[in-house]
Protein backbone atom coordinates (compact mmCIF):
# COMPACT_ATOMS: atom_id res chain seq x y z
CA UNK A 1 0.00 0.00 0.00
CA UNK A 2 2.81 2.38 0.93
CA UNK A 3 4.41 1.60 -2.40
CA UNK A 4 1.16 2.35 -4.18
CA UNK A 5 0.83 5.77 -2.50
CA UNK A 6 4.43 6.46 -3.37
CA UNK A 7 3.86 5.69 -7.03
CA UNK A 8 0.63 7.67 -7.03
CA UNK A 9 2.27 10.83 -5.71
CA UNK A 10 5.30 10.49 -8.00
CA UNK A 11 3.00 9.91 -10.94
CA UNK A 12 0.95 12.96 -10.04
CA UNK A 13 4.05 15.14 -9.70
CA UNK A 14 5.38 14.09 -13.08
CA UNK A 15 1.89 14.37 -14.53
CA UNK A 16 1.57 17.93 -13.21
CA UNK A 17 4.60 18.97 -15.23
CA UNK A 18 3.18 17.32 -18.35
CA UNK A 19 -0.14 19.01 -17.62
CA UNK A 20 1.43 22.48 -17.44
CA UNK A 21 3.34 21.90 -20.67
CA UNK A 22 0.13 20.64 -22.25
CA UNK A 23 -1.83 23.68 -21.06
CA UNK A 24 0.68 26.02 -22.67
CA UNK A 25 0.36 24.01 -25.85
CA UNK A 26 -3.46 24.05 -25.72
CA UNK A 27 -3.72 27.79 -25.06
CA UNK A 28 -1.66 28.49 -28.16
CA UNK A 29 -3.53 25.94 -30.22
CA UNK A 30 -7.00 27.14 -29.36
CA UNK A 31 -6.17 30.82 -29.67
CA UNK A 32 -3.99 30.70 -32.78
CA UNK A 33 -4.53 27.28 -34.37
CA UNK A 34 -0.80 26.60 -34.20
CA UNK A 35 0.44 23.14 -33.25
CA UNK A 36 3.60 24.22 -31.49
CA UNK A 37 6.31 21.63 -31.91
CA UNK A 38 8.67 23.86 -29.98
CA UNK A 39 6.49 23.48 -26.86
CA UNK A 40 9.06 21.25 -25.20
CA UNK A 41 11.83 23.75 -25.90
CA UNK A 42 9.68 26.43 -24.25
CA UNK A 43 9.81 24.37 -21.05
CA UNK A 44 13.57 23.92 -21.47
CA UNK A 45 13.95 27.71 -21.81
CA UNK A 46 11.91 28.07 -18.63
CA UNK A 47 14.31 25.85 -16.74
CA UNK A 48 17.31 27.73 -18.08
CA UNK A 49 15.71 31.07 -17.23
CA UNK A 50 15.82 29.65 -13.70
CA UNK A 51 19.47 28.65 -14.16
CA UNK A 52 20.28 32.23 -15.14
CA UNK A 53 18.44 33.90 -12.28
CA UNK A 54 19.00 31.36 -9.49
CA UNK A 55 22.45 29.96 -10.25
CA UNK A 56 24.23 32.57 -12.37
CA UNK A 57 22.75 35.74 -10.83
CA UNK A 58 22.26 34.21 -7.35
CA UNK A 59 19.03 36.18 -6.81
CA UNK A 60 16.82 35.44 -3.82
CA UNK A 61 13.95 33.01 -4.47
CA UNK A 62 11.02 35.32 -5.11
CA UNK A 63 13.02 37.77 -7.23
CA UNK A 64 14.62 34.95 -9.17
CA UNK A 65 11.32 33.26 -9.94
CA UNK A 66 9.73 36.56 -10.92
CA UNK A 67 12.66 37.48 -13.14
CA UNK A 68 12.67 34.05 -14.78
CA UNK A 69 8.97 34.32 -15.59
CA UNK A 70 9.45 37.87 -16.87
CA UNK A 71 12.17 36.58 -19.20
CA UNK A 72 9.76 33.94 -20.42
CA UNK A 73 6.99 36.52 -20.97
CA UNK A 74 9.40 38.56 -23.07
CA UNK A 75 10.38 35.46 -24.95
CA UNK A 76 6.69 34.72 -25.68
CA UNK A 77 6.23 38.21 -27.10
CA UNK A 78 9.38 37.88 -29.17
CA UNK A 79 8.20 34.54 -30.51
CA UNK A 80 4.87 36.11 -31.47
CA UNK A 81 6.61 38.82 -33.50
CA UNK A 82 9.43 36.87 -35.07
CA UNK A 83 7.83 33.47 -35.68
CA UNK A 84 4.05 33.58 -35.42
CA UNK A 85 3.35 36.75 -37.40
CA UNK A 86 5.52 35.84 -40.40
CA UNK A 87 4.25 32.26 -40.47
CA UNK A 88 0.60 32.65 -39.60
CA UNK A 89 -0.66 32.57 -43.18
CA UNK A 90 1.14 29.33 -43.91
CA UNK A 91 -0.57 25.94 -44.04
CA UNK A 92 -0.86 23.71 -40.98
CA UNK A 93 2.18 21.77 -42.06
CA UNK A 94 4.28 24.83 -42.82
CA UNK A 95 3.61 25.98 -39.28
CA UNK A 96 4.46 22.56 -37.86
CA UNK A 97 7.78 22.52 -39.71
CA UNK A 98 8.34 26.17 -38.78
CA UNK A 99 7.99 25.44 -35.08
CA UNK A 100 10.27 22.43 -35.46
CA UNK A 101 12.88 24.71 -37.02
CA UNK A 102 12.47 27.11 -34.11
CA UNK A 103 12.88 24.17 -31.75
CA UNK A 104 16.20 23.28 -33.40
CA UNK A 105 17.30 26.92 -33.09
CA UNK A 106 16.31 27.11 -29.42
CA UNK A 107 17.99 23.85 -28.49
CA UNK A 108 21.27 24.74 -30.18
CA UNK A 109 21.22 28.30 -28.89
CA UNK A 110 20.94 26.83 -25.40
CA UNK A 111 23.77 24.39 -26.13
CA UNK A 112 26.01 27.25 -27.25
CA UNK A 113 25.18 29.41 -24.24
CA UNK A 114 25.04 26.83 -21.46
CA UNK A 115 27.09 23.89 -22.72
CA UNK A 116 26.12 20.27 -22.52
CA UNK A 117 26.60 19.66 -18.80
CA UNK A 118 23.35 19.39 -16.86
CA UNK A 119 22.60 21.77 -13.99
CA UNK A 120 21.00 21.08 -10.68
CA UNK A 121 18.42 23.78 -10.14
CA UNK A 122 17.78 24.39 -6.43
CA UNK A 123 14.32 24.32 -4.89
CA UNK A 124 13.04 26.35 -1.92
CA UNK A 125 11.75 23.04 -0.57
CA UNK A 126 15.17 21.46 -0.99
CA UNK A 127 15.32 17.74 -0.31
CA UNK A 128 12.83 17.71 2.56
CA UNK A 129 10.56 14.70 2.68
CA UNK A 130 7.32 13.80 4.45
CA UNK A 131 6.22 10.32 5.42
CA UNK A 132 2.77 9.54 4.13
CA UNK A 133 1.59 6.15 5.40
CA UNK A 134 4.99 4.61 4.82
CA UNK A 135 5.48 6.35 1.50
CA UNK A 136 8.29 8.89 1.44
CA UNK A 137 7.23 11.92 -0.53
CA UNK A 138 9.49 14.83 -1.38
CA UNK A 139 7.97 18.15 -0.42
CA UNK A 140 9.02 19.52 -3.76
CA UNK A 141 6.80 16.94 -5.51
CA UNK A 142 3.88 18.01 -3.30
CA UNK A 143 4.73 21.63 -4.08
CA UNK A 144 4.58 20.87 -7.79
CA UNK A 145 1.11 19.37 -7.44
CA UNK A 146 0.05 22.40 -5.36
CA UNK A 147 1.42 25.01 -7.77
CA UNK A 148 -0.21 23.26 -10.71
CA UNK A 149 -3.57 23.33 -8.93
CA UNK A 150 -3.13 27.06 -8.24
CA UNK A 151 -2.17 27.78 -11.83
CA UNK A 152 -5.17 25.90 -13.11
CA UNK A 153 -7.49 27.79 -10.78
CA UNK A 154 -5.92 31.08 -11.87
CA UNK A 155 -6.43 30.20 -15.52
CA UNK A 156 -10.06 29.33 -14.85
CA UNK A 157 -10.61 32.75 -13.31
CA UNK A 158 -8.76 34.43 -16.18
CA UNK A 159 -10.80 32.75 -18.88
CA UNK A 160 -14.17 32.97 -17.17
CA UNK A 161 -14.14 36.07 -15.02
CA UNK A 162 -11.93 38.66 -16.72
CA UNK A 163 -12.62 40.58 -19.91
CA UNK A 164 -9.12 39.84 -21.23
CA UNK A 165 -9.62 36.12 -20.82
CA UNK A 166 -13.08 36.18 -22.33
CA UNK A 167 -11.68 38.20 -25.21
CA UNK A 168 -9.01 35.56 -25.74
CA UNK A 169 -11.67 32.89 -25.86
CA UNK A 170 -13.64 34.96 -28.38
CA UNK A 171 -10.56 35.25 -30.61
CA UNK A 172 -10.03 31.51 -30.30
CA UNK A 173 -13.57 30.73 -31.33
CA UNK A 174 -13.96 33.12 -34.23
CA UNK A 175 -11.24 35.53 -35.19
CA UNK A 176 -13.30 37.46 -37.74
CA UNK A 177 -16.22 37.95 -35.39
CA UNK A 178 -13.87 39.05 -32.65
CA UNK A 179 -12.37 41.61 -35.00
CA UNK A 180 -15.81 42.91 -35.94
CA UNK A 181 -16.68 43.22 -32.27
CA UNK A 182 -13.80 45.64 -31.97
CA UNK A 183 -11.43 43.41 -29.97
CA UNK A 184 -7.73 44.13 -30.30
CA UNK A 185 -7.10 40.78 -31.87
CA UNK A 186 -3.36 41.03 -32.34
CA UNK A 187 -2.84 42.05 -28.76
CA UNK A 188 -4.91 39.09 -27.56
CA UNK A 189 -3.04 36.69 -29.84
CA UNK A 190 0.24 38.00 -28.50
CA UNK A 191 -1.06 37.52 -24.99
CA UNK A 192 -1.77 33.85 -25.74
CA UNK A 193 1.87 33.34 -26.66
CA UNK A 194 3.04 35.22 -23.59
CA UNK A 195 0.78 33.15 -21.38
CA UNK A 196 1.97 29.91 -22.96
CA UNK A 197 5.59 30.92 -22.48
CA UNK A 198 5.01 31.84 -18.84
CA UNK A 199 3.27 28.53 -18.15
CA UNK A 200 6.14 26.71 -19.80
CA UNK A 201 8.39 28.79 -17.54
CA UNK A 202 6.52 27.61 -14.43
CA UNK A 203 6.76 24.02 -15.63
CA UNK A 204 10.46 24.48 -16.32
CA UNK A 205 11.20 26.02 -12.92
CA UNK A 206 9.37 23.23 -11.13
CA UNK A 207 10.91 20.35 -12.98
CA UNK A 208 14.46 21.71 -12.83
CA UNK A 209 15.03 20.56 -9.26
CA UNK A 210 13.37 17.17 -9.88
CA UNK A 211 15.00 16.24 -13.20
CA UNK A 212 18.08 18.46 -13.58
CA UNK A 213 18.29 21.07 -16.30
CA UNK A 214 19.84 20.11 -19.60
CA UNK A 215 19.53 21.56 -23.06
CA UNK A 216 18.11 18.39 -24.57
CA UNK A 217 15.23 17.96 -22.15
CA UNK A 218 12.64 19.60 -24.43
CA UNK A 219 11.64 16.98 -26.96
CA UNK A 220 10.70 14.18 -24.58
CA UNK A 221 8.49 16.61 -22.67
CA UNK A 222 6.78 17.76 -25.86
CA UNK A 223 6.01 14.17 -26.82
CA UNK A 224 4.33 13.51 -23.51
CA UNK A 225 2.46 16.81 -23.70
CA UNK A 226 1.11 15.81 -27.13
CA UNK A 227 -0.10 12.47 -25.78
CA UNK A 228 -1.69 14.33 -22.87
CA UNK A 229 -3.60 16.76 -25.09
CA UNK A 230 -4.94 13.99 -27.31
CA UNK A 231 -6.10 11.91 -24.38
CA UNK A 232 -7.60 14.89 -22.60
CA UNK A 233 -9.04 16.45 -25.72
CA UNK A 234 -7.38 18.68 -28.25
CA UNK A 235 -7.93 22.32 -27.38
CA UNK A 236 -9.43 21.70 -23.95
CA UNK A 237 -7.88 23.09 -20.76
CA UNK A 238 -9.43 20.58 -18.34
CA UNK A 239 -8.48 17.96 -20.91
CA UNK A 240 -4.83 19.00 -20.81
CA UNK A 241 -4.82 18.62 -17.04
CA UNK A 242 -6.54 15.24 -17.00
CA UNK A 243 -4.42 14.07 -19.92
CA UNK A 244 -1.18 15.22 -18.28
CA UNK A 245 -1.97 13.51 -15.00
CA UNK A 246 -3.08 10.41 -16.85
CA UNK A 247 0.15 10.17 -18.83
CA UNK A 248 2.23 10.74 -15.67
CA UNK A 249 0.35 8.07 -13.75
CA UNK A 250 0.34 5.57 -16.62
CA UNK A 251 4.10 5.96 -16.91
CA UNK A 252 4.80 5.26 -13.25
CA UNK A 253 2.05 2.73 -12.57
CA UNK A 254 2.58 1.04 -15.94
CA UNK A 255 6.28 0.62 -15.21
CA UNK A 256 5.40 -0.92 -11.89
CA UNK A 257 2.48 -3.19 -12.74
CA UNK A 258 2.83 -3.96 -16.45
CA UNK A 259 6.35 -3.69 -17.86
CA UNK A 260 9.06 -1.13 -17.36
CA UNK A 261 10.41 -1.78 -20.87
CA UNK A 262 7.11 -1.15 -22.61
CA UNK A 263 5.59 1.46 -20.29
CA UNK A 264 5.71 4.28 -22.85
CA UNK A 265 3.81 2.09 -25.25
CA UNK A 266 0.94 2.28 -22.76
CA UNK A 267 0.50 6.05 -22.93
CA UNK A 268 1.01 6.21 -26.69
CA UNK A 269 -1.14 3.12 -27.24
CA UNK A 270 -3.92 4.71 -25.23
CA UNK A 271 -3.41 7.92 -27.16
CA UNK A 272 -3.89 6.11 -30.48
CA UNK A 273 -6.85 4.20 -29.05
CA UNK A 274 -8.44 7.48 -28.00
CA UNK A 275 -7.87 8.92 -31.45
CA UNK A 276 -9.64 5.97 -33.00
CA UNK A 277 -12.51 5.58 -30.58
CA UNK A 278 -12.98 9.04 -29.17
CA UNK A 279 -10.84 11.52 -31.11
CA UNK A 280 -12.26 14.45 -29.21
CA UNK A 281 -10.62 13.05 -26.07
CA UNK A 282 -12.18 13.22 -22.66
CA UNK A 283 -13.24 16.86 -22.80
CA UNK A 284 -12.36 17.92 -26.29
CA UNK A 285 -13.99 20.01 -28.95
CA UNK A 286 -16.32 18.34 -31.40
CA UNK A 287 -14.02 16.96 -34.07
CA UNK A 288 -16.04 18.28 -37.00
CA UNK A 289 -15.28 21.84 -35.94
CA UNK A 290 -11.67 21.57 -36.81
CA UNK A 291 -9.84 19.27 -39.05
Amino acid at each position, binding site marked *: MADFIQLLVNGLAIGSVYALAAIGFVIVYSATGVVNFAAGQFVMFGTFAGVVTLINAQLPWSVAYGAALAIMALFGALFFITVYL*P*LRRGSIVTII*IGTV*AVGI*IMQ*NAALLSFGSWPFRLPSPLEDRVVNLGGAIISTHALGVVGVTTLMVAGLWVLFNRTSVGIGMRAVAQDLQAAKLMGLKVNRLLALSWVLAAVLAGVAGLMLGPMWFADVNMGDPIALKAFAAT*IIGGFGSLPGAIVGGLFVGLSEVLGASYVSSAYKDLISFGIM*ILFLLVRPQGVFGEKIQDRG
Partner: protein
Amino acid sequence: MRAPLAIAAAILVLGGLIASVLPEYYLRLFNLSAISAVAVIGLNFAFGYAGLISLGHAAFVGMGAYGLAILTTAWGWSPWLAMPAAIATTAALAALIGYPLLRLRGHYLALATLGLNVSFYIVTSNWIGLTGGTNGIARIPELAIGSLALSGEHRFLCVALVTLAVVAALAAMLHASRHGREMMAVRDDEIASEMIGIDVTRVKITAFVLSAICAAVAGCLFALHVRFVAPEDFTYAHSITYLAMLIVGGEGTIVGAILGAILLTFLPEWLRFLGTAYLLFFGLLMLCILVFLPTGLVGLGRRMRPRSRKTAPSTSVGVPEMTS
Protein backbone atom coordinates in the same frame (compact mmCIF):
# COMPACT_ATOMS: atom_id res chain seq x y z
CA MET B 1 2.98 10.09 -71.08
CA ARG B 2 5.63 12.66 -71.96
CA ALA B 3 6.12 14.17 -68.53
CA PRO B 4 6.91 10.92 -66.66
CA LEU B 5 9.48 9.89 -69.23
CA ALA B 6 11.00 13.35 -69.21
CA ILE B 7 11.32 13.28 -65.46
CA ALA B 8 12.90 9.85 -65.46
CA ALA B 9 15.30 10.88 -68.20
CA ALA B 10 16.16 14.11 -66.43
CA ILE B 11 16.95 12.28 -63.21
CA LEU B 12 19.18 9.76 -64.96
CA VAL B 13 20.99 12.30 -67.12
CA LEU B 14 21.49 14.97 -64.47
CA GLY B 15 22.29 12.36 -61.83
CA GLY B 16 24.76 10.67 -64.15
CA LEU B 17 26.47 13.94 -64.97
CA ILE B 18 26.74 14.90 -61.34
CA ALA B 19 28.03 11.46 -60.44
CA SER B 20 30.82 11.67 -62.98
CA VAL B 21 32.33 14.84 -61.51
CA LEU B 22 31.78 14.58 -57.75
CA PRO B 23 34.14 13.11 -55.15
CA GLU B 24 32.94 10.21 -53.05
CA TYR B 25 31.80 12.19 -50.02
CA TYR B 26 29.37 14.18 -52.14
CA LEU B 27 28.31 11.01 -53.89
CA ARG B 28 27.39 9.58 -50.53
CA LEU B 29 25.27 12.64 -49.80
CA PHE B 30 23.71 12.25 -53.23
CA ASN B 31 22.88 8.67 -52.46
CA LEU B 32 21.29 9.74 -49.20
CA SER B 33 19.36 12.46 -51.05
CA ALA B 34 18.12 9.97 -53.64
CA ILE B 35 16.99 7.56 -50.92
CA SER B 36 15.22 10.36 -49.07
CA ALA B 37 13.72 11.58 -52.34
CA VAL B 38 12.10 8.18 -52.90
CA ALA B 39 10.59 8.39 -49.42
CA VAL B 40 9.50 11.99 -49.90
CA ILE B 41 7.84 11.25 -53.25
CA GLY B 42 5.92 8.65 -51.29
CA LEU B 43 4.97 11.17 -48.68
CA ASN B 44 3.80 13.38 -51.51
CA PHE B 45 1.12 10.78 -52.37
CA ALA B 46 -0.26 10.95 -48.87
CA PHE B 47 0.22 14.63 -48.15
CA GLY B 48 0.72 16.46 -51.43
CA TYR B 49 -2.03 14.66 -53.31
CA ALA B 50 -4.46 13.36 -50.71
CA GLY B 51 -3.81 15.93 -47.97
CA LEU B 52 -3.03 13.35 -45.27
CA ILE B 53 -0.56 14.80 -42.78
CA SER B 54 1.69 11.95 -41.73
CA LEU B 55 4.31 12.32 -39.03
CA GLY B 56 4.93 8.58 -39.08
CA HIS B 57 6.56 8.18 -42.48
CA ALA B 58 9.90 7.14 -40.97
CA ALA B 59 8.17 4.17 -39.33
CA PHE B 60 7.31 2.81 -42.79
CA VAL B 61 10.83 3.49 -44.00
CA GLY B 62 11.93 1.57 -40.92
CA MET B 63 9.57 -1.33 -41.63
CA GLY B 64 11.05 -1.70 -45.11
CA ALA B 65 14.62 -1.42 -43.80
CA TYR B 66 14.07 -3.86 -40.92
CA GLY B 67 12.19 -6.23 -43.19
CA LEU B 68 15.12 -6.42 -45.54
CA ALA B 69 17.67 -6.54 -42.72
CA ILE B 70 15.92 -9.40 -40.93
CA LEU B 71 15.25 -11.45 -44.06
CA THR B 72 18.83 -11.14 -45.32
CA THR B 73 20.71 -11.60 -42.04
CA ALA B 74 18.59 -13.95 -39.94
CA TRP B 75 16.96 -15.89 -42.76
CA GLY B 76 19.78 -15.67 -45.25
CA TRP B 77 17.64 -14.50 -48.18
CA SER B 78 19.10 -12.74 -51.17
CA PRO B 79 18.46 -8.98 -51.05
CA TRP B 80 16.67 -9.28 -54.39
CA LEU B 81 14.09 -11.60 -52.82
CA ALA B 82 14.01 -9.84 -49.48
CA MET B 83 13.24 -6.47 -51.03
CA PRO B 84 9.84 -7.31 -52.57
CA ALA B 85 8.92 -9.29 -49.47
CA ALA B 86 9.78 -6.37 -47.17
CA ILE B 87 7.91 -3.92 -49.38
CA ALA B 88 4.83 -6.14 -49.57
CA THR B 89 4.82 -6.62 -45.80
CA THR B 90 5.08 -2.88 -45.23
CA ALA B 91 2.23 -2.25 -47.66
CA ALA B 92 0.05 -4.78 -45.88
CA LEU B 93 0.86 -3.24 -42.49
CA ALA B 94 0.12 0.24 -43.86
CA ALA B 95 -3.28 -0.90 -45.09
CA LEU B 96 -3.98 -2.48 -41.73
CA ILE B 97 -2.93 0.64 -39.82
CA GLY B 98 -4.42 3.06 -42.31
CA TYR B 99 -7.88 1.58 -42.28
CA PRO B 100 -8.81 2.73 -38.78
CA LEU B 101 -6.41 5.69 -38.64
CA LEU B 102 -7.44 7.50 -41.79
CA ARG B 103 -10.81 8.49 -40.42
CA LEU B 104 -8.82 11.22 -38.70
CA ARG B 105 -7.92 14.50 -40.30
CA GLY B 106 -5.51 17.42 -39.95
CA HIS B 107 -3.78 17.73 -36.59
CA TYR B 108 -5.42 14.59 -35.29
CA LEU B 109 -3.95 12.45 -38.03
CA ALA B 110 -0.61 14.21 -37.59
CA LEU B 111 -0.43 13.39 -33.89
CA ALA B 112 -1.81 9.86 -34.35
CA THR B 113 0.89 9.05 -36.89
CA LEU B 114 3.43 10.67 -34.57
CA GLY B 115 2.25 8.26 -31.88
CA LEU B 116 2.61 5.43 -34.37
CA ASN B 117 6.21 6.43 -35.02
CA VAL B 118 7.02 6.59 -31.30
CA SER B 119 5.44 3.16 -30.84
CA PHE B 120 7.54 1.80 -33.71
CA TYR B 121 10.67 3.06 -31.93
CA ILE B 122 9.67 1.45 -28.64
CA VAL B 123 8.88 -1.89 -30.27
CA THR B 124 12.06 -2.03 -32.36
CA SER B 125 14.21 -1.10 -29.35
CA ASN B 126 12.70 -3.75 -27.10
CA TRP B 127 11.84 -6.70 -29.32
CA ILE B 128 15.41 -7.89 -29.06
CA GLY B 129 14.73 -11.36 -30.46
CA LEU B 130 13.57 -9.98 -33.80
CA THR B 131 15.30 -6.62 -34.18
CA GLY B 132 18.42 -6.95 -32.06
CA GLY B 133 17.11 -4.15 -29.84
CA THR B 134 18.99 -0.86 -29.73
CA ASN B 135 22.13 -2.56 -31.05
CA GLY B 136 20.37 -2.80 -34.37
CA ILE B 137 21.20 -5.22 -37.16
CA ALA B 138 24.66 -5.08 -38.72
CA ARG B 139 26.32 -6.95 -41.57
CA ILE B 140 23.50 -6.61 -44.07
CA PRO B 141 24.82 -8.12 -47.33
CA GLU B 142 25.69 -6.01 -50.35
CA LEU B 143 23.44 -5.84 -53.35
CA ALA B 144 25.04 -7.75 -56.24
CA ILE B 145 24.23 -8.69 -59.80
CA GLY B 146 25.90 -12.03 -60.29
CA SER B 147 29.43 -11.46 -59.10
CA LEU B 148 29.28 -7.68 -59.53
CA ALA B 149 28.79 -6.15 -56.09
CA LEU B 150 26.85 -2.90 -56.21
CA SER B 151 28.84 -1.41 -53.38
CA GLY B 152 30.76 1.83 -53.29
CA GLU B 153 29.06 5.14 -53.73
CA HIS B 154 29.39 5.18 -57.52
CA ARG B 155 27.74 1.87 -58.24
CA PHE B 156 25.16 2.37 -55.55
CA LEU B 157 24.23 5.71 -57.04
CA CYS B 158 23.28 3.88 -60.24
CA VAL B 159 20.87 1.71 -58.27
CA ALA B 160 19.51 4.68 -56.34
CA LEU B 161 19.07 6.85 -59.46
CA VAL B 162 17.32 4.12 -61.42
CA THR B 163 14.99 3.45 -58.51
CA LEU B 164 14.33 7.15 -58.06
CA ALA B 165 13.68 7.59 -61.80
CA VAL B 166 11.22 4.69 -61.84
CA VAL B 167 9.42 5.87 -58.71
CA ALA B 168 9.28 9.46 -59.97
CA ALA B 169 7.97 8.40 -63.39
CA LEU B 170 5.31 6.20 -61.82
CA ALA B 171 4.35 9.03 -59.50
CA ALA B 172 4.05 11.44 -62.42
CA MET B 173 1.90 8.93 -64.29
CA LEU B 174 -0.33 8.51 -61.29
CA HIS B 175 -0.56 12.24 -60.89
CA ALA B 176 -1.91 12.61 -64.41
CA SER B 177 -4.31 9.69 -64.04
CA ARG B 178 -7.88 9.51 -62.78
CA HIS B 179 -6.61 8.12 -59.45
CA GLY B 180 -4.37 11.10 -58.99
CA ARG B 181 -7.18 13.53 -59.70
CA GLU B 182 -9.40 11.64 -57.27
CA MET B 183 -6.79 12.02 -54.56
CA MET B 184 -6.50 15.75 -55.12
CA ALA B 185 -10.26 16.07 -55.17
CA VAL B 186 -10.37 14.40 -51.75
CA ARG B 187 -7.64 16.73 -50.52
CA ASP B 188 -9.47 19.85 -51.70
CA ASP B 189 -12.98 18.93 -50.61
CA GLU B 190 -13.82 15.63 -49.05
CA ILE B 191 -17.58 16.08 -48.96
CA ALA B 192 -17.84 17.30 -52.54
CA SER B 193 -15.71 14.33 -53.64
CA GLU B 194 -18.06 11.97 -51.90
CA MET B 195 -21.03 13.60 -53.62
CA ILE B 196 -19.62 13.07 -57.07
CA GLY B 197 -19.21 9.41 -56.29
CA ILE B 198 -15.57 9.08 -55.17
CA ASP B 199 -15.03 6.39 -52.56
CA VAL B 200 -13.14 8.64 -50.15
CA THR B 201 -11.98 5.88 -47.81
CA ARG B 202 -10.61 3.81 -50.69
CA VAL B 203 -8.81 6.79 -52.18
CA LYS B 204 -7.24 7.74 -48.86
CA ILE B 205 -6.08 4.23 -48.12
CA THR B 206 -4.68 3.86 -51.61
CA ALA B 207 -2.69 7.05 -51.17
CA PHE B 208 -1.49 5.97 -47.74
CA VAL B 209 -0.43 2.51 -48.93
CA LEU B 210 1.33 3.96 -51.98
CA SER B 211 3.20 6.32 -49.69
CA ALA B 212 4.18 3.40 -47.45
CA ILE B 213 5.38 1.40 -50.46
CA CYS B 214 7.70 4.20 -51.51
CA ALA B 215 8.83 4.51 -47.90
CA ALA B 216 9.61 0.80 -47.82
CA VAL B 217 11.57 1.05 -51.09
CA ALA B 218 13.57 3.88 -49.53
CA GLY B 219 14.03 1.79 -46.38
CA CYS B 220 15.41 -1.15 -48.39
CA LEU B 221 17.80 1.17 -50.21
CA PHE B 222 18.86 2.68 -46.88
CA ALA B 223 19.57 -0.74 -45.38
CA LEU B 224 21.59 -1.78 -48.43
CA HIS B 225 23.50 1.50 -48.53
CA VAL B 226 24.50 1.83 -44.87
CA ARG B 227 24.31 -1.94 -44.27
CA PHE B 228 23.33 -1.31 -40.68
CA VAL B 229 19.94 -0.44 -39.23
CA ALA B 230 19.07 0.66 -35.69
CA PRO B 231 15.87 2.03 -34.11
CA GLU B 232 17.25 5.55 -33.92
CA ASP B 233 17.48 5.76 -37.74
CA PHE B 234 13.68 5.82 -37.93
CA THR B 235 12.45 8.14 -35.19
CA TYR B 236 9.67 10.70 -35.50
CA ALA B 237 12.34 13.35 -36.00
CA HIS B 238 13.14 11.65 -39.32
CA SER B 239 9.43 11.77 -40.21
CA ILE B 240 9.45 15.49 -39.59
CA THR B 241 12.54 15.81 -41.77
CA TYR B 242 10.76 14.04 -44.64
CA LEU B 243 7.82 16.39 -44.28
CA ALA B 244 10.18 19.36 -44.13
CA MET B 245 11.86 18.19 -47.32
CA LEU B 246 8.49 18.15 -49.05
CA ILE B 247 7.51 21.60 -47.80
CA VAL B 248 10.89 23.17 -48.50
CA GLY B 249 10.92 21.66 -51.98
CA GLY B 250 7.34 22.55 -52.74
CA GLU B 251 4.44 20.36 -51.67
CA GLY B 252 2.41 18.55 -54.27
CA THR B 253 5.22 18.30 -56.81
CA ILE B 254 7.65 15.53 -57.63
CA VAL B 255 10.44 17.91 -58.55
CA GLY B 256 9.89 19.70 -55.26
CA ALA B 257 10.18 16.43 -53.36
CA ILE B 258 13.53 15.73 -55.02
CA LEU B 259 14.88 19.26 -54.58
CA GLY B 260 13.80 19.36 -50.94
CA ALA B 261 15.47 16.01 -50.25
CA ILE B 262 18.70 17.23 -51.82
CA LEU B 263 18.70 20.58 -50.05
CA LEU B 264 17.94 19.30 -46.55
CA THR B 265 20.51 16.50 -46.91
CA PHE B 266 23.26 18.83 -48.06
CA LEU B 267 22.48 21.92 -45.99
CA PRO B 268 23.66 20.69 -42.57
CA GLU B 269 26.77 19.21 -44.20
CA TRP B 270 27.58 22.48 -45.94
CA LEU B 271 27.23 24.31 -42.67
CA ARG B 272 29.72 22.08 -40.84
CA PHE B 273 32.38 24.78 -41.09
CA LEU B 274 30.39 26.75 -38.51
CA GLY B 275 31.45 24.26 -35.82
CA THR B 276 29.01 23.65 -32.98
CA ALA B 277 26.76 26.48 -34.18
CA TYR B 278 25.92 24.81 -37.48
CA LEU B 279 22.58 23.36 -36.43
CA LEU B 280 21.48 26.75 -35.16
CA PHE B 281 22.05 28.19 -38.59
CA PHE B 282 20.40 25.18 -40.19
CA GLY B 283 17.23 25.93 -38.18
CA LEU B 284 17.42 29.62 -39.07
CA LEU B 285 17.79 28.92 -42.77
CA MET B 286 14.89 26.48 -42.68
CA LEU B 287 12.71 29.07 -40.99
CA CYS B 288 13.71 31.69 -43.56
CA ILE B 289 12.78 29.38 -46.43
CA LEU B 290 9.37 28.77 -44.87
CA VAL B 291 8.76 32.47 -44.34
CA PHE B 292 10.15 33.85 -47.60
CA LEU B 293 9.40 30.94 -49.93
CA PRO B 294 6.01 29.70 -48.74
CA THR B 295 5.59 27.57 -51.87
CA GLY B 296 9.04 26.06 -51.58
CA LEU B 297 11.93 25.89 -54.01
CA VAL B 298 9.58 24.93 -56.84
CA GLY B 299 7.57 28.07 -56.12
CA LEU B 300 10.76 30.07 -56.52
CA GLY B 301 11.17 28.52 -59.97
CA ARG B 302 7.59 29.35 -60.85
CA ARG B 303 7.97 32.90 -59.76
CA MET B 304 10.94 33.29 -62.07
CA ARG B 305 9.25 31.47 -64.93
CA PRO B 306 7.24 34.32 -66.57
CA ARG B 307 10.51 35.73 -67.77
CA SER B 308 11.97 32.48 -68.97
CA ARG B 309 8.86 30.84 -70.36
CA LYS B 310 9.13 32.07 -73.90
CA THR B 311 12.75 31.20 -74.26
CA ALA B 312 12.71 27.87 -72.51
CA PRO B 313 9.32 26.17 -72.68
CA SER B 314 10.82 22.83 -71.77
CA THR B 315 11.25 23.84 -68.13
CA SER B 316 7.57 23.23 -67.53
CA VAL B 317 8.10 19.55 -68.16
CA GLY B 318 9.96 19.38 -64.92
CA VAL B 319 6.78 20.26 -63.08
CA PRO B 320 4.10 17.94 -64.34
CA GLU B 321 1.47 19.59 -62.22
CA MET B 322 1.65 22.59 -64.51
CA THR B 323 1.12 20.63 -67.67
CA SER B 324 -1.75 18.44 -66.60
